[in-house]
């Protein structure tokens, strides 16, 4: 959904739709305390797509669930504010805004109830969020299925989820998410379970819907390629923290954080076939305590001694007002030599 010029509608007069600041979600188990989301802040403006990219275990799904108030036991959203349309969701609760925020999960077959028809499930959402019932709801359900590109919607609406293919199921899930006419759609790996050709269809669909409805989308994925195609701005998440944030093209062209760089390098397509793939040793650590150093330092190829002692703050590294920041002690200092 990148506009050709790479710009977004982030005009100064416009208020962010959702402003997340210092979000902390902690899981308390018998054995350990996991700071799954550890102080994340970002804004989403109306009509834009913000990407959240990270490896498994980095906390991206917990972020999505925290935004919608879906964190299950033993997790607790401990701190932070989720300012949505000027109100802090953590204080007001989600009840009032349920219809304004929707989520699309990774696996469509789990998101649909197998014993009800697809139409039934859309109508249920319509009844809850828009008070539509009877024939009005039936017609709207068909419209929605058509809107998500399901051919022959009048018949399909009467079918059960198992009669849909994976791609069609995900379209139906999106239709349900759209039934409440949301302002913000959180897509948690919506295409990971799908094949590339179907993935392309779904990405096209989301793009189209966004343009038509002025929808804001938080797009979460582990796949840099998908994020790159969809997002206007990208947040890179590592061990519960956002380590770098930049407009898409800027991030791809000039990553400032060594983790972002490593992540980009490990995409096989970026390495010529006859060369060894660049690797990054180690695994994403489980954040089981407050950060006392840079969490990436143990794996970082350029870490200095200080990195193991001081947790880095995000520093702005963007030129002429670009919203680009990186949480690295070395950001903006030693990096230029790397770029030469």
């Amino acid at each position, binding site marked *: 959904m990148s506009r050709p010029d790479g710009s977004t509608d982030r005009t100064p007069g416009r208020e962010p739709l959702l402003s997340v600041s210092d979000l902390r979600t902690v899981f308390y188990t018998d054995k350990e305390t996991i700071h799954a989301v550890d102080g994340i802040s970002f804004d989403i403006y109306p009509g834009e797509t913000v990407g959240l990219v990270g490896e498994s275990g980095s906390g991206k799904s917990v972020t999505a669930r925290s935004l919608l108030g879906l964190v299950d036991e033993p997790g607790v959203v401990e701190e932070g504010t989720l300012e949505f349309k000027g109100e802090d969701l953590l204080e007001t609760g989600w009840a009032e805004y349920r219809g304004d925020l929707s989520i699309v999960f990774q696996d469509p077959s789990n998101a649909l109830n197998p014993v009800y028809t697809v139409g039934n499930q859309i109508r249920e959402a319509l009844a809850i969020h828009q008070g539509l019932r009877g024939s009005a709801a039936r017609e709207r359900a068909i419209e929605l299925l058509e809107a998500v590109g399901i*051919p022959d919607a009048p*018949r399909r609406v009467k079918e059960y989820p198992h009669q849909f293919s994976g791609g069609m199921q995900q379209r139906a899930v999106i239709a349900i998410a759209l039934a409440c006419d949301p302002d913000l759609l959180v897509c948690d790996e919506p295409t990971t379970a799908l094949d590339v*050709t179907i993935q*392309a269809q779904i990405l096209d669909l989301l793009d189209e819907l966004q343009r038509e409805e002025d929808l804001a989308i938080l797009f979460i994925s582990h796949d840099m390629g998908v994020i790159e195609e969809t997002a206007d701005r990208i947040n890179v998440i590592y061990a519960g923290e956002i380590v770098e944030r930049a407009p898409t093209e800027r991030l791809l062209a000039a990553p400032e954080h060594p983790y972002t760089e490593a992540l980009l390098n*490990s995409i096989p397509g970026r390495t010529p*076939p006859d060369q060894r793939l660049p*690797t*990054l040793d180690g695994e994403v650590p489980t954040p089981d305590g407050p950060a006392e150093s840079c969490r990436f330092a143990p794996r970082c190829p350029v870490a200095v001694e200080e990195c193991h002692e001081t947790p880095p703050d995000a520093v702005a590294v963007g030129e002429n007002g670009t919203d680009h920041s990186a949480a690295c002690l070395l950001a903006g200092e030693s990096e230029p030599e790397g770029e030469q």
Partner: protein
Amino acid sequence: MTQAIEPQETDGQESRAPLLEIRNLQIQYDDSSLIGGDPPVRAVDGVSLDIRRGETLGLVGESGCGKTTFSRALVGLESATSGEILVDGTDLTELEGPALREWQRRVGMVFQDPQESLNDRMTVGEIISEPLDAHDWQDQEEREDRVFELLDRVGLQEEHFYRYPHQFSGGQRQRVGIARALALEPEFLILDEPVSALDVSVQARVINLLEELQADLGLTLLFVAHDLSLVRHVADRVAVMYLGNLLEVGRTDRLFDAPANPYTRSLLSAIPGSASPAPDELGEITLRGTPPNPRYPPSGCPFATRCPAKIPPEKYPDLSAEEFDAIETFRAILRERARSSSGVSASLKRRLGIGTSVRTVDEIATELFAGLDLPPEANEVIEDARTSARSDPAAALELLRTEFASVCDRDPPAEYVVDDTGRTSRCLRHREEYDDPDEI
């Protein structure tokens, strides 16, 4: 044009002797219900392929295309319905008992999900030595030494011997899976999506390990994957599978630089991101619909129902692409209808006049063809089809099929050699009389 060019040997690749020669392999699943019902699922539908000694063959395709079934058949986990898999002149599909076990000793298989493929009640040591135990490989002490050697080989430590799979990360577990596959010193390794369950940074390390192993041990690899970027990185040759058929087979660099088959082209163009291995001039091709049900494969080219380069019908050569597309969509909808209305309850409904779908077929047709200026003869046929669709969608479909049938709906494409390295592609557009796929 492209056919009838003798493959030329451009490097050592082609001269290597085949380890496996697969000839017209078919694998079908019957739902084994006692009362005969649906036709069998044609998971693999006539595949012929050579796997050469020492090469890495990439097998790509979407989920459900039969690539996993095909690779499982090579170790005897699936039984072939017909066709041959020849190894040194022996047909694997005929093997049983000790002879099959002897072959299984020469193959190793690595599975997609390392969480699923390791028994989590066994220690890593037990897991890796199990193939050795199963084949009574030497004595206990040597087996233990061999396991330690394998652990070292795949980059794990000795102390991991007594750990359980739970205590490992995904990447390490997959290393255990690789060590197990290597235990009996196989010559051929089948990798079924070995890294698709892993994170990118971990993926790279496993891929590097596999490449090292191949170089050191002279292994032949069959690398089954859906990630084309990855396949481009590891494979010497690539086979593209769709609906149980191989649509394109050829050298990796050639196939990625100038994909010949419309399906390969669509697949490549669908890869998102700037790191996509697709050639730039490919543009964006978004396929409509999903692969057809392998129980009811199309009668002509398997890809005909979704093909963006489908040859227009002979009767109406002047149809614009848009018009042809509308007709194709109409047909796709009718096809769906015909299938769902063949049941008892549907026919009962029709007889009782509760036909719920009558109205909507018309509506859809109106919508589809609105704003299109079909040639009068074509328009007439569409009108006829709309009328008969009310009572009998199957008849309407048949009418459309005979009228607007493309050669792609009729003739299964043969294999055409498309370049001087012996790359083959199955597409009727390679015939003399049509434009090549890349010109569409």
